[in-house]
């Protein structure tokens, strides 16, 4: 078979190098688009759909998504300290962007975040102390006892019902319906949502709640174990919050 001339094979080598360089520039471009889109869609901590990311960042090319998502995820973790968590949401592939870093001091939050988080802590704290899942009605009864009403404006928290609904949209709180024996309608239950499980420290919630009710965290054995792990839990008595 006749050999190709030297210059011909060199120029085809060059165009191969050029096209793979172009491909990696394109890929970097796609990765950057995916990162930017995920950040933009997550401004409100909403649950984001994979289909939205593909449509906005990748002109709906879903094979491209699989190629670039690993690198995009790594960048979000390495540069921003965020983790992309898979969420199951009505059969749609979705995810949420969670912070890997605990928000230690409230200084890092602006005033409106501070109010939101305080309310969130109270709600998540009560759910946690009551074993992890409670009927939604009981939650509002508890909030009423500490002066937080479902309707109307609260002097510090503002539109409580609105904030509560946004916590559900942001996956801090999970609301589910279950049929209960003896009840004709389904009952609504609330528990910690996916974002709370990743972002909120059970230790902080337990400590904060116990400070409010003036009891020791070690008094609540199952919560203490859940929050601190088994090694920390020897010697505590079990008690239940009334």
């Amino acid at each position, binding site marked *: 078979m006749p050999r190709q001339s030297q210059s011909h094979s060199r120029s085809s080598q060059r165009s191969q190098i050029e096209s793979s360089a172009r491909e990696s520039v394109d890929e970097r471009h796609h990765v950057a688009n995916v*990162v930017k889109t995920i*950040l933009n*869609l997550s401004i*409100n901590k909403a649950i984001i759909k994979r289909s939205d990311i593909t449509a906005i960042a990748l002109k709906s090319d879903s094979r491209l998504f699989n190629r670039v998502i690993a690198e995009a995820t790594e960048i979000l973790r390495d*540069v921003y300290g965020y983790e992309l968590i898979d969420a199951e949401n009505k059969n749609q592939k979705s995810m949420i962007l969670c*912070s890997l*870093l605990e928000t*230690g001091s409230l200084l*890092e939050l602006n005033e409106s975040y501070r109010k939101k988080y305080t309310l969130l802590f109270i709600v998540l704290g009560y759910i946690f102390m009551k074993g992890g899942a409670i009927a939604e009605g009981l939650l509002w009864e508890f909030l009423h006892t500490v002066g937080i009403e479902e309707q109307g404006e609260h002097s510090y928290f503002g539109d409580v019902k609105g904030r509560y609904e946004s916590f559900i949209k942001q996956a801090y709180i999970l609301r589910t319906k279950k049929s209960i024996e003896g009840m004709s309608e389904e009952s609504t239950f609330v528990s910690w949502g996916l974002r709370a499980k990743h972002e909120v420290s059970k230790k902080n919630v337990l400590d904060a709640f116990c400070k409010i009710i003036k009891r020791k965290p070690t008094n609540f054995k199952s919560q203490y174990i859940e929050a601190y792990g088994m090694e920390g839990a020897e010697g505590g008595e079990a008690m239940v919050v009334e």
Partner: protein
Amino acid sequence: MTYTDVHRAFLQACSNHGTISAQQAYDILVGIYARYAASESVPREDAVAEVVAAINTRIYPFDQKIAYIHYDPTDTDFYVFVSLLESPIDLQQKEYTLPELHYFRALLRELTLSDDHQLPSIACLNLTNETGSDGHKALSKGRAEQLLTEWEDLGYFLVLEDKCHFGPKAIVEFEKYLNTNYADVITRCCLCNVTIFYGVRCATCPQILHKDCLKKYLRRLTNCPACKKLWSVPV
């Protein structure tokens, strides 16, 4: 400087706040060092600038930046977290409805066109009248008030003595947009050539100058850099 959780935590704090004063930024950094770099000593004041510079190199590929701006109306320095392309308010976001975005743009427009770029709060609320269109109901005054507070928190506006001003974040993010669309109304400080909204006005000519630029200039000379007449306004 290696890139650590100190940088990531500071970046998240900046993007959560939108706008922070230089003092707040330092306080936040001290808190972050206590959590993530407890073995190191308390950071120096200029550590903030170093951390910001390191962060900016990493977020630049994603069209983001933490910008540093001296804000004349309050004579304070601010760090502002911005998207370098169009403002996130415009882009793909599901945060604000069409009438709300319309309201934001109307505020920008009226602030640009008004004398000294200030609007009394009442006038700001009255702008809701033009937000109804194409089947969308106009914004309620109550919702407008909520939005103004939200946007002020983020740094887009600042209300001083009941007058609404451009906030540090609006100045950084919309400088190009306003220069392009309102070129005839926007001026530059003739000493530093940067777009200027707020500053000191000459008594004899229409030139406005940044306070800091003017102070430096008046150390050596005593006349207005634009009209050359003797400078009479106290700085």
